[in-house]
């Protein structure tokens, strides 16, 4: 097995007295499609927030491609290949579709000469072309000039994935990308992500839709009350007693055993 691209080791996090993550560890190998699942409030989004630097890690370490990024400033992480989306869409509401996507490439185009180019006045700008191509590849047929605040939920959700892709990440973290999408949109998204992963992008997915996880992920970790209670293949996860208890509650399981 190749060296892990992302190593999360014994990470803990509390907010005030509330322990939200407790000694969580897992590794992602390059090109892997890794699912992070668990009941509401288990700490999945908090893992993303620690990886992207929004919150500081209390204990433990995060290593990306051999480099310790545990205490790296937020803005330096995307340039190292770590990119993410958000559970509740966080596009810039007053920017257009294409402008939001252009923001995703900021880390590659922040030299002063690029920053000063009046790209809105240029017909053929390479950044704009790249943004348009990625939008098309993702099957997004929207007016690139329309303001995102006015677009439907499913479209905005997809634009967020496209924006996260624009930085050419080595690890792409998506927080419930299929939430709110219909069945057809969900399967299109799974196909799209599958194709991305063949281009050597490692995927870390938080998702409640288990069909989506089964269709896409090679490996799954389950969080419950801030602790990892299981790691294995999606098939194994369905048979694991601790996972069933976490999702269904102990009493239901005992009740069904008794019956």
């Amino acid at each position, binding site marked *: 097995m190749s060296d892990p691209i992302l190593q999360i080791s014994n990470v803990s996090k509390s907010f005030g007295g509330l322990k939200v993550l407790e000694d969580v560890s897992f590794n992602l190998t390059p090109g892997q499609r890794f699912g992070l699942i668990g009941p509401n409030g288990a700490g999945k989004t908090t893992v993303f927030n620690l990886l992207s630097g929004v919150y500081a890690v209390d204990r433990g370490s995060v290593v990306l491609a051999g480099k310790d990024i545990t205490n790296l400033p937020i803005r330096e992480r995307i340039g190292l290949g770590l990119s993410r989306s958000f559970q509740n869409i966080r596009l810039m509401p*007053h920017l257009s579709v294409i402008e939001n996507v252009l923001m995703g490439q900021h880390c590659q185009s922040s030299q002063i000469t690029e920053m000063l180019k009046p790209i809105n006045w240029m017909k053929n700008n390479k950044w704009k072309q790249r943004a348009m191509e990625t939008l098309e590849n993702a099957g997004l047929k929207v007016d690139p000039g*329309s*303001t995102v605040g006015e677009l439907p939920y499913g479209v905005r959700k997809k634009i967020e994935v496209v924006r996260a892709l624009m930085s050419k990440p080595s690890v792409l973290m998506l927080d419930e990308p299929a939430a709110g999408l219909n069945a057809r949109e969900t399967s299109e998204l799974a196909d799209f992500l599958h194709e991305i992963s063949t281009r050597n992008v490692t995927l870390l997915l938080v998702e409640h839709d288990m069909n989506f996880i089964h269709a896409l992920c090679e490996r799954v970790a389950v969080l419950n009350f801030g602790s990892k209670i299981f790691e294995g293949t999606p098939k194994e996860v369905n048979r694991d007693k601790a996972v069933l208890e976490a999702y269904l509650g102990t009493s239901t399981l005992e009740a069904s055993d008794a019956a």
Partner: protein
Amino acid sequence: MMGGYVEGIIAILCINLMFAYGVYLTAASGQLNLGGAGFQAIGAYVAGVCSNSLGFPIFFSVLGGVLGAGLIGFLISFPVLRTRGVYMVLATFAFALVVSGVILNTDFLGGATGMVVTAYTPVEVLILATLLTILLVFWLMASRIGLVMRAVHDDDVVSEIMGVNVRGVQVFAFTLGGALAGLSGALYAHHYSFIEAQYFSALLSIFVLLFVLIGGTQTAWGPLFGASFFTLVPEVLRLGDTEWRYVIFGILIVLMMIFRPEGIITRTLVHRVIMVFNRSGGH
């Protein structure tokens, strides 16, 4: 030749436009600057001193005012950016009060009696400077710098995750914004030949922020509309019933805030106009 009345209106319109663009730059990146008059006063007085006491040619005096106000904008941004929301508004407001207080208590600057600036700049220079200011801001807003400023306005945390140096963008906006407000002050001093601390009042800071917010902070068209509206409409109303013009003007402002809370000129509006324009151009 322009008539004196028209020339007077054009001069004040130019001053207000440059001033509004100065305050606009911070607003576009999400910070409200209620200390605009402070930066304008610094520009005016630095330029006045350069001209009167140091004997600089007008161009260099104005440049001095621009650099002075820009430098203060840079320095003041660090304490101001530690505050947020309404506290930031109050911090910038307090800054302008301090500037005005310092001028009033400095005999060298003429104190409460004001300062006569002997060198004179004609209205043509104001027009040229205004056009260059507008061009500069439109260009900035068409570039990635403007994009990043607007992104920071919308969501600073996500901008930072995208790799943006959010603090750097905000400091830049305060610095360049201070410099533009300083430019308006420096040219004011040389066009009207007289400056006094009372002119750079709290009310002026409020008005310029209103120009910007009612015009709209999403595109560079906003301050152009806002400053023109606020400068010209009172003049138009002056032609009619004098008793009621402030009432009508006040009602207009309230209506605009109710029906266009994001400002009169929004990005969506500009996009729609461009689409209509392109379509009719295609036929």
